[in-house]
């Protein structure tokens, strides 16, 4: 499956997924800067939503990982917001979800994998990490390796298959019924399943990092 090249930056091809990744990054960064300029002790207005989101995710992370998990809250929140925005933006006609591209989801799953192993090396030392591959029995070493690969693959393919498959289904529906009828299905597949898949990816990311930390 060839990526659709939208334009070139000095002979660097920019595909449509990459363009929308940049758009979502800009929206999240500029939005979070603008919304946190005048924080007040007693929250008003938009600050309520921000505090609810941050505290919600912090509660879930600390529930799973203990107080040491607070270090990972920014990463988990960035992953969750990025996947949520990019799943929902696919509903807009003409827009492409970056997560409908296997490159994006594989990159996210690899980030979680590297952070997990890196955290284990940082907090428990290299020897404990290397010994972890031979637990519980030494001859299970190849199975542990295959387990790591399959964990990354399943983590990425779940998100990719759900969003890309939803896009295909909606594309077929557009060919049959172009006008009013797709709207409830767009709401179901695009918004609801997108939000659920973002939550599932995030929860699994928390669980995977926690498995390295105990």
């Amino acid at each position, binding site marked *: 499956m060839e990526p659709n090249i939208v334009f070139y930056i000095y002979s660097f091809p920019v595909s449509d997924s990459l363009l929308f990744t940049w758009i979502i990054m800009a929206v999240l960064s500029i939005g979070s800067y603008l919304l946190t300029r005048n924080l007040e002790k007693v929250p008003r207005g938009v600050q309520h939503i921000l505090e609810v989101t941050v505290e919600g995710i912090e509660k879930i992370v600390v529930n799973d990982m203990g107080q040491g998990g607070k270090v990972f809250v920014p990463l988990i929140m960035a992953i969750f917001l990025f996947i949520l925005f990019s799943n929902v933006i696919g509903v807009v006609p003409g827009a492409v979800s970056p997560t409908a591209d296997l490159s994006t989801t594989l990159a996210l799953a690899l980030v979680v994998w590297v952070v997990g192993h890196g955290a284990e090396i940082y907090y428990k030392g290299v020897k404990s990490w290397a010994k972890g591959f031979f637990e519980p029995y030494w001859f299970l070493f190849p199975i542990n390796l295959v387990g790591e690969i399959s964990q990354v693959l399943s983590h990425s393919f779940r998100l990719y298959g*759900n969003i890309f498959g939803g896009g295909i289904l909606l594309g077929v529906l557009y060919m049959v019924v172009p006008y009013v009828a797709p709207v409830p299905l767009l709401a179901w597949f695009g918004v609801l399943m997108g939000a659920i898949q973002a939550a*599932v990816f995030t929860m699994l990311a928390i669980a995977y990092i926690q498995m390295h930390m105990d």
Partner: protein
Amino acid sequence: MMEIAIIISAIAISSGIALLVGGAVGLGEGYVAGKAVEAIGRQPEAENAIRTTMILGQAISESGAIYSLAVVLLMIFTIVLPLLGRFMDLLG
């Protein structure tokens, strides 16, 4: 042209067989939903926790069917679509 016809028909048949997996997944998820409804009936205060856990569990078990969907989409987009152009030209 005969080989292309065989390839395309084989992919079509195997895609149909691969997507039968969705039947078992639907059965499992329906069973879990039934258990969740039972649990809510037994303890209505825990409704929020039960609903969240059910959604989470079903999204993860749905990924089994999504793997077969991903393989089918991969086959169609990388094998059938390029061959279809050539096949239509050969048919005339």
